[in-house]
């Protein structure tokens, strides 16, 4: 049995026993020349491994709980996957909701109406603002802040939503509404 075969066997045993099974620790145990093969074998195993059994105690403190909650909000709402994605992207950008609202308002040219921009953004995170209700300009500005492409952000919002025309401007709208919602 080669070193890589032995390490793959050890890796699988650790994974199946519920251990950490950190693949990097195994890769560190082989010379550079063998590392790609071992990585491919471990990766191949993981890609074929069945779903792990549910452990309610471990789940509560795991990142999976945040993911599941975000998805549930998304499926219930009307903003596609934004409720599951946006809070995380905002956090990756190092911003809390009010900081993001401030930056978004400033870059949209609506710094004087930050609270309204913040309210719209909050609706996107909550899943209550349909993607058709967000202008291309607002989406592009938000995408730049959270380091995603506008197309990727738009696609995430559209998943599960029917294609709708942009919202028509209302007589009651002010210039911030027009900037954020189009029309």
């Amino acid at each position, binding site marked *: 049995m080669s070193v890589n075969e032995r390490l793959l066997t050890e890796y699988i045993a650790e994974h199946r026993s519920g251990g950490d099974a950190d693949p990097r620790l195994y890769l560190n145990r082989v010379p550079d020349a063998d590392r790609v093969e071992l*990585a491919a074998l471990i990766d191949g195993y993981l890609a074929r491994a069945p779903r792990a059994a549910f452990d309610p105690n471990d789940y509560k403190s795991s990142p999976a709980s945040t993911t599941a909650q975000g998805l549930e909000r998304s499926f219930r709402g009307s903003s596609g996957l934004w409720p599951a994605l946006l809070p995380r992207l905002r956090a990756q950008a190092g911003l809390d909701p009010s900081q993001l609202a401030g930056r978004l308002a400033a870059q949209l040219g609506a710094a004087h109406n930050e609270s309204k921009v913040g309210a719209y953004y909050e609706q996107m995170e909550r899943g209550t603002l349909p993607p058709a209700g967000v202008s291309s300009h607002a989406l592009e500005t938000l995408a730049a802040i959270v380091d995603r492409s506008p197309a990727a952000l738009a696609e995430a919002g559209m998943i599960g939503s029917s294609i709708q025309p942009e919202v028509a401007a209302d007589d009651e709208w002010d210039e911030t509404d027009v900037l954020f919602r189009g029309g």
Partner: protein
Amino acid sequence: MSFRALPEHALDLLDDEALIAYIRAATEAGAEADALRGLAVLVYGYARQVERRMALRLPAHVVEDVAHEALVRAVGSAFHGRSTGEFRSWLHTIADRTVVDWYRRRERSPAQVALGEDDSTGIEAVDSATGLVELQMLIADLMLELNDRHRQVVDLHVFGDLTAREVCDRIDGVSPDNVAQIASRFRHNLRSRLNPAVGEGST
């Protein structure tokens, strides 16, 4: 359409496709807590697998975030009927794409990004993210070259770590010697294809 709530232990026994159908039915019935319970079982069941695969490709400090994004994209599209094939394959395909997207966003050539370059583990680069995606394609290609029975042998013996005897118990018409030969040939072919990547003399 009537919806019947199931306890966690029963959800755990459903296959992925049935679990996704359950989550969809619960959502449509307005049973938020039941939908969340189903999502918990599905997401928890794959989250660490996705994270481990990403640990082979990404710096440690971004693994959790990128895994979250992949899970959201894969489960979200499967929920809305926009996935193809079985969920597990779809999830890993999306995970690979999400990793490539991460490298693209960094506007760096993946080959220049050492695996774990900013990690405390100090592990050397295995390969680029794209390289590892290509490795999985290489394995998929090798598997496609096998007939159904040989493919099953490789799945069970090489990637499933069953002994040759256990494999024989599951597949009619193969002997332990056959299993060893098929697995050995597969590993040899894998190494041969990898040779250009791993350099001369690593046979």
